[in-house]
């Protein structure tokens, strides 16, 4: 593989770090050359967080050219749309969690909330695939990130990385009861 780029975007506190590390380690277990970088501003919580993962033999910088990512993972609908606008390439794939963490201008009534059809339309403009992930049934919102990993595994979105590779990555990163609960969610979404 020459180059395969993944762009993850969400809100601080959503567990983007674990999501990114699971994909990074999954790709590594599959034998891909891979690197990643997180970009978070100054807040512990509540601001936009972006993580990029780059696989391939001709990849050097952890940062990506604009509109050059094969997949965008949006952890929330506003950020999913922001990610599509900044990073998704034509013919790419958007996977997003159908949840909304309203940004301040929406809560202040100054700006309308982004809706799922905004995402469908944005993807249509780019001839991109648009996969929605429902997490309403999850008992613990802090494990929504793993639903995304499961969905990436189910659709084999990163070429050459199998379900087992992601499972091994989770085993690297978590242990005990927390691993068991995350693995259940992973399996549920990976199908």
């Amino acid at each position, binding site marked *: 593989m020459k*180059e395969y780029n993944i762009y993850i975007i969400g*809100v*601080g506190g959503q567990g983007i770090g674990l999501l990114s590390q699971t994909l*990074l380690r999954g790709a*590594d277990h599959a034998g891909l050359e*891979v*690197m*990643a*970088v*997180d*970009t*978070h*501003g*100054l*807040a*512990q*919580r*509540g*601001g*936009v967080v972006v993580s990029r993962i780059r696989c391939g033999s*001709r*990849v*050097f*910088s*952890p*940062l990506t*050219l*604009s*509109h*050059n990512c094969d997949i965008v993972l949006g952890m929330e609908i*506003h*950020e999913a*749309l*922001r990610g*599509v*606008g900044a990073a998704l390439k034509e013919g790419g794939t958007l996977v997003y969690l159908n*949840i909304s*963490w*309203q*940004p*301040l*201008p*929406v*809560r*202040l*009534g100054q*700006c*309308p*909330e*982004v*809706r799922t059809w*905004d995402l469908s*339309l*944005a993807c249509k*403009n*780019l001839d991109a695939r648009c996969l929605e992930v429902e997490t309403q049934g999850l008992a*613990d919102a802090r494990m929504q990130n793993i639903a995304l990993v499961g969905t990436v595994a189910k659709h084999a979105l990163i070429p050459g990385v199998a379900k087992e590779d992601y499972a091994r990555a989770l085993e690297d*990163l978590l242990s005990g*009861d*927390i691993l068991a609960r995350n693995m259940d969610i992973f399996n549920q979404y990976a199908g």
Partner: protein
Amino acid sequence: MKNLGELLVQPDPFEEILMGNQALVRAMVESNTRVATSYPGSPTPEIASAIQDIPKDRQPFYFEFSVNEKVATEVAFGAAINGNLSCVFYKSVGLNVALDTFVQLGLVNIIGGMVVVIGDDPGANSSQNEQDNRNIYRMAKVTVLEPASPKEAYAYYKQAAQLAVAHKTIVVLRLATHVCHARQKINFAGYTEDKGYKTQFNKENGPYIPLTVLALEMKRLAMERIGPILSDIRKSGLNQVIRSSSSQGKGIITAGLTWLSVLDVLERFSHRPNLLKLGVVNPLDREGILSFLTSNDQVLILEELDDILENQIKAMAYDHGLTVTITGKTRDKDFIGEFTPDKTFEKILATWPEMMPRGIKEAGQKEEGLVAEGLKEKTPVAIVPDRSAQMCPGCGHRSAFFAIKKALNKEDITVADIGCHTLGYMPPYEVGEVLMCMGASPGIASGLSLNNGGKKVVAFLGDSTFFHAGLPGLINTIFNSHNITLIIMENGTTAMTGHQDHAGGVIKIETLLKGLGIEQVFSCDTYSQEKLTGLVKEALKAEGISVVIARHPCMLKFTRGQRKKKGYVQKHIAIDPQTCTQAHVCVESFGCPSFIRNLDGSVSVNTDLCLGDGSCRPSCPDQAIGFEKETNEGI
């Protein structure tokens, strides 16, 4: 993967995916670093958390969070002139705090060697500016290594340590945000544990007193050291030339993360310039650079932030009468922000339009540069509202700002400081109208208070910042009888950078304030909003300095601790739709991010976010906010 801390002190070689900041700790261990100090600041705090992850009984060296960057530098220096390799690390603007000490370090015979790791922040991701500290390194006459990746951060620290020990000096490792936070697989070497600690201080190793003629003598010795250091640098292979058979007389000189941007975008070009990557950005290897210049007709210098390399390299070419064309920064925007792959691509094409890759059609002129079609901005179908950083659900600062605002008159002036509470400047609170740097608020407020009529001036300080640099400003208000109110936002931790401990755990702020002779000291928990409003009103009436300690533990830290406890019950608040009159005070003025504004004007609660702390309840004029029936979601 083994536990990170155990891995970092494993004597055998291993391969692992680590972040730049974590890889650096392994290099510290392998290099036999004996003392490390720091003050937390992004992008470097993960260096400290990796050190603290090492089991206590296997800690490879002494580590402390010092009270500020200057003290951290001094502690590391003290250990190093006792004969031990030491390391101090902090963020870009931390160097400003440490500067008085730092500029002396290059002049001194540091017998144990010292590595100063400074995380610059091009793009100002988490800093008040994006200052290029290479300006300071030139002035201080210190050697500076600049890695581009986690792999290089690991390798370069070891080289920096070797140079520092061999030449009895300091060496700076210049990191950037996306080097610190990048992750990749690295092959780590083995090492032999050596816990030996030296106590070899001897003034004969000096001079250590830079007064009168000695100051000049020390500078002369520092200048003398540059030659032998450069000779080692040439042998080290830190500066690298990659020749191309399709260069067409073109060459690029670059360093750090920009080097990786260059390699990445050159993948898109059909011919490649010759490349010189500088691993050492001060002092410059004149010989190597001149040789590169003479082998090219046109050279482009790509460097982030200031034109430090460019000015020196142009001067070298002038001195040697070279005819090579040298292009560096030509527009203001070349000085601003990171040299991302996008920016590097655009700059190369703006300099050499004939290099436009085949297959990418010209999309016309954009600003001064050409933009390839693949890079042209797409318009999203809907506008995505901004999402700035904000205070967390349950944050005590939110309750404080909501309450304090009620005590202030419109014309009163509020002065912010660095920390989570800085975010109070944003809507809906808009408290904090001027911000400078760590600990500046009491001084700025004092200046504003002079001949200020009836307007009150209120300064804010976090507790970690109070100890870091706030104290001198506060003491000045007492010494010079300034008329301000200081509000100390005490959350018991250094929250913004990830909950590091600070001196407040040992020294009680209230006791200290009373010891300073301040008579008007008030304090209360910020969740007691009405009381806090009253106390601030009272403090504002006082003449001279008055202080209000607005206290509440950081709820992010507190809740994480609670969740780990057995039988933890997750609570949420709930809004009673019968009682709610849609006054919207909770969502618009109190502004907790847990509130959801629905299309029909009703307000509901995002249970993913709500902590059930109830700090919002006093804000509701209808008393419509209560607690939801309890659910057990504990781990």
